[in-house]
């Protein structure tokens, strides 16, 4: 069984939106900084005025590895692309990039968000923009 995030009070709202199929990015209402992970204050200025804003869902592969082994729940999926996605809004997220052909995974590959079901929760994933 693959794990799902166990949200803490400061990340709950962000994961709730994921479960609704919506990717958001925390934004500071004082300095406009956008960041991840979600937290109760802005890491750029310390303001507590933080809101979740809708993300475009577009990004690029900043870097990645192709896991040829996997921990429990993932071993049967290997090899799979474990990537850091640079969102259009600025911050990065870790996710899988779901590709038919592993050789199509590359640095700077444009990707768009998708969501996969995991139990009664959803998990953020990405697919190449050209496939979408």
């Amino acid at each position: 069984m693959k794990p799902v995030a166990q949200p803490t009070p400061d990340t709950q709202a962000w994961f709730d939106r994921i479960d609704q199929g919506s990717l958001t990015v925390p934004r500071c209402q004082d300095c406009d900084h956008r960041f991840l992970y979600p937290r109760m204050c802005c890491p750029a200025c310390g303001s507590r005025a933080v809101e979740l804003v809708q993300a475009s869902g577009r990004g690029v592969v900043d870097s990645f590895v192709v896991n040829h082994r996997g921990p429990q729940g993932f071993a049967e999926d290997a090899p799979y692309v474990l990537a850091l996605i640079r969102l259009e809004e600025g911050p990065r997220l870790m996710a899988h990039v779901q590709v038919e052909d592993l050789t199509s995974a590359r640095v700077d590959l444009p990707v768009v968000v998708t969501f996969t079901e995991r139990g009664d929760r959803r998990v953020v994933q990405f697919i190449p923009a050209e496939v979408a």
Partner: protein
Amino acid sequence: MGLRGAIAIVGAAESTDLGKLPDMSALQLHVDAALNALADAGLKPSDVDGVASAGELPNDVADYLGIVPEYLDATNVGGCSYMLHVRHAMAAITAGLCETVLITHGESGRSRVGMQPWAPAPQSMMGQFEVPYGPVGAPSLFPIGVRRYMDTYGMTEEQFAMVPVVQREWAARNPRAKLRDPITVEDVLSSPVIADPIHLAHCCLVTDGGGALVLTSAERAKDLCSSAPVYVLGAGESSESSVVSGLASLTSSRAIERGGRAALRQAEVAHDDVGHLMIYDAFAHVPLYGLEDLGFVGRGEAAAFVAERNTAPGGRLPLNTNGGGLSYTHTGMYGMFAIQESVRQVRGTAPAQVDGVDVSVVTGVGGMFMTSGSLVLGSASTV
């Protein structure tokens, strides 16, 4: 008073054995190394009034040895914790909080005797944002930026493979190293793929072992009939993101850069003064990032620098001369072993001794570039 050269390492030793030690718990490995380091310093446990450790709590190490300390440092920020212990001891001893500090490491990384399994807590940021994607632990999380590095700077797989090849050359000169047979670029690239571009040969060993240091003021060091004191000329520490996805850069480490350059500044040494270098090599890319972050080479130059044998035996900047985590030993929190090799090189007692090392720099990392600590160590001629 200034901190440069204010304290000295007067005792340094590893556990009696390294490797597979199913008959020793992690705590025993701390204590075994501590007794060896105290013997090296010509001191007894009762001479110690400060204890620092990571993995086991310093109060537990102190109690086992019958020490009632007046200074405790339980800093645990991963494998570089021991660099931070030295830095904190530098301040504490100089300020008069204590006189003699014992720093211990012990880890049953391979046999797992008396050890909890490593796993991020499910409610930690890494547990929430990264574990659900099935990283293969450190082997995929730590080197995840290497593709970006290759893309940015044009590092080839062959250049990258030279890191383990060169370190194995150092290990071949060290009878205590676990892996001593020479390897080629071909051997590295044909070793099993773990998390492409990382092959097994790019990954550190997993072993059991320990190490310990004894520090005191430079003044008091002169009166101890130990091996030649090794002076702490500079020290620095830093940290950044709790998750890999939050690191400022995927092609460098802000924590290494901040901590390392602070150490060099405090030590008042130029890069050309450094005769020996240790950079924590949990995976083969870390020394490359470190060479650049510490300023020994420019951005993007480290892979060619290593491939052209500048860090190899006979090269101008000997690096990871014990064989490193890749070939010597790696218990999990390897930083202590990197410090031990720097001490040996400055003392002139290393198995693969480099000629005339008066200044050695040793840099550790914790987590996946989340923390870093650096030390600049010097011989008597530097103070």
